[in-house]
């Protein structure tokens, strides 16, 4: 069921577990296991530093409002590490601020998705019966609902913006988290300590929050890391279609979309944000994957 839930995340393919973690044979095996989590963790930390802290302390120009006199400077020009785009905005700065927008959206979507989806799924799995059925059928509707119609509707009705992109993406993350939480709760529910809690007169709310929630949390957090990668790709797709962050504010998706028109003349403007997107998603996927391998052991 857990694998099922991950398979049906709309629009993106969740990576699958690659079976039992390689047997930690001797020192080499242990070293490999440690490197397997620290390398992606370092990469994620570096990306967060570059996108959130470096623009505050480093010599990074503003991502918008550049002078037309500086337009189309080549890479490694003085003051413009990666050159400037057709309106004179610094490309390096746009990459960093675009990444910041992507990461903010991904954090919000996965944080809120984990909280609400997790509670909903744990509740459904714990109470079972008709309430479980109703919740899961409603989530089925949301999962089968074409994501794009909703995204377009939100963008047209409320205007494209960062907050509205979060709303649109939450509709996919909450059902995904809820399915995983429900499956995990069904496994936990049969454990002796839950039975003991019930027999000793612990209330349902307390059992759910104090006994079930802490035990399903590791699985949800692991999925959240994989979900970060998925959300970043989906947010890029929304911005690419003009439904996410509106230009001139940078986002990797709208930068890739803008670069598409000049792909043959200046591939740099497509390739740079694409590479940034790729590296970030790889880092989150590797981190999620190694966390999962750790949890399976």
């Amino acid at each position, binding site marked *: 069921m857990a694998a099922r839930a991950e398979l049906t995340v709309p629009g993106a393919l969740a990576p699958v577990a690659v079976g039992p973690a390689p047997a930690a044979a001797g020192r080499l095996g242990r070293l490999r296991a440690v490197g397997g989590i620290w390398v992606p963790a370092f990469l994620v930390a570096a990306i967060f530093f570059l996108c959130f802290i470096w623009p505050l302390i480093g010599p990074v120009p503003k991502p918008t409002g550049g002078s037309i006199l500086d337009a189309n400077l080549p890479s490694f020009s003085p003051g413009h590490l990666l050159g400037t785009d057709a309106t004179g905005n610094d490309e390096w700065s746009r990459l960093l601020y675009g990444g910041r927008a992507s990461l903010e959206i991904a954090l919000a979507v996965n944080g809120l998705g984990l909280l609400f989806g997790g509670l909903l799924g744990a509740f459904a799995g714990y109470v079972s019966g008709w309430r479980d059925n109703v919740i899961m059928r409603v989530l089925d509707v949301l999962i089968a609902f074409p994501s794009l119609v909703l995204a377009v509707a939100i963008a047209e009705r409320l205007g494209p913006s960062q907050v509205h992109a979060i709303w649109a993406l939450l509709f996919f993350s909450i059902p995904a988290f809820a399915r995983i939480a429900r499956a995990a709760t069904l496994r936990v529910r049969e454990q002796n300590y839950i039975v003991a809690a019930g027999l000793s007169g612990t209330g349902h709310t307390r059992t759910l929050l104090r006994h079930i929630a802490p035990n399903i949390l590791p699985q949800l957090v692991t999925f959240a890391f994989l979900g970060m990668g998925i959300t970043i790709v989906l947010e890029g797709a929304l911005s690419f279609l003009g439904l996410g962050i509106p230009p001139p504010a940078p986002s990797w998706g709208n930068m890739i979309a803008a*670069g598409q028109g000049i792909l043959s003349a200046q591939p740099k403007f497509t390739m740079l944000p*694409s590479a940034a997107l790729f590296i970030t998603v790889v880092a989150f996927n590797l981190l999620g994957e190694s966390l999962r391998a750790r949890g399976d052991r």
Partner: protein
Amino acid sequence: MSGSPLLRFVGRRLLVAIPVIFGVTFLTFVVVSHLPGNAAQQLLGINATPQELHQLSAQLGLDKPLLTRYGDWLHGLVTGSLGHSLASGQSVTSILGSDLPVTFELIAYALLLSLLCAVPVALLAARRPNGLFDRTSMVVSMAGLSIANYVLALLLVYIFAVKLNWLPALGWVPPGKSLSGNIKTLTLPAISIALSLMCFYTRLLRSDLVGQLQGEDYVITARAKGAGTWRILVHHTLRNSVFGLITAVALNLGTLLGVTVIIEQIFGLPGIGHELLSAINSRDVPVIEGAVFVFALLVVLANLVADVLYAWLDPRVRYGGAS
């Protein structure tokens, strides 16, 4: 509904699926009706007088209450009609009939490519778990899973259309006109979809193969007979592992429909995703509803087929009434 457990299982799943389809189509009505402007506004343009607007709205039936319109649509559905496009007047069935083959061909091409690569790679990787080939293929497949399909599409266009000029970057040639032209126009879009699928299937199949090699009695028997790892993999293990793969393919069909929207947009393919986007822009409710209905139906059917195939192909799985 008695008789075979399979029939009962399918029947129960279909009963569960019906409310889902009602829910999806109704939600679409609600969402679309909240969009600013309606089809009359989009058809008449910005200079329309309120009177003209009112008249056309009444003519198209847009002034009726939401529930009445949904009821009308359901009535049409039961009698086998999905209505007519508000923009062109064409019947929705004929519009979908001309779009669906494009999307299906694209998905079939992508699935074929991904499976043709995934099965041999997974077999080679599983032959020596943690060997050089296994590790390389796992790293490559992790990278492949992390490439967004729209990024890959642009990368492919840059390499194969702009630089090498081997394949077209845009457009669609019907198979009736020129089969080779048809395949050429679909190759880049299909690869854009296929790469991540291929990596996904490779990892899935490889992990299943390795798991079976390690723990199953029939593998030990085969080894005792003196069969080599390769022979065991191809003749025994693959047969067992293929169930999981087929289920994954069926489950993916639903998500693939969503993926095709953006790929069709990039490559200018006249498929159902492309149609849906333009229908939303012109507030063409019957076409939106028709496309959403087909999407939801396919997702539900794909899930059902996945479950049934799994149970049917693998006799160890039971359609338990309790679970």
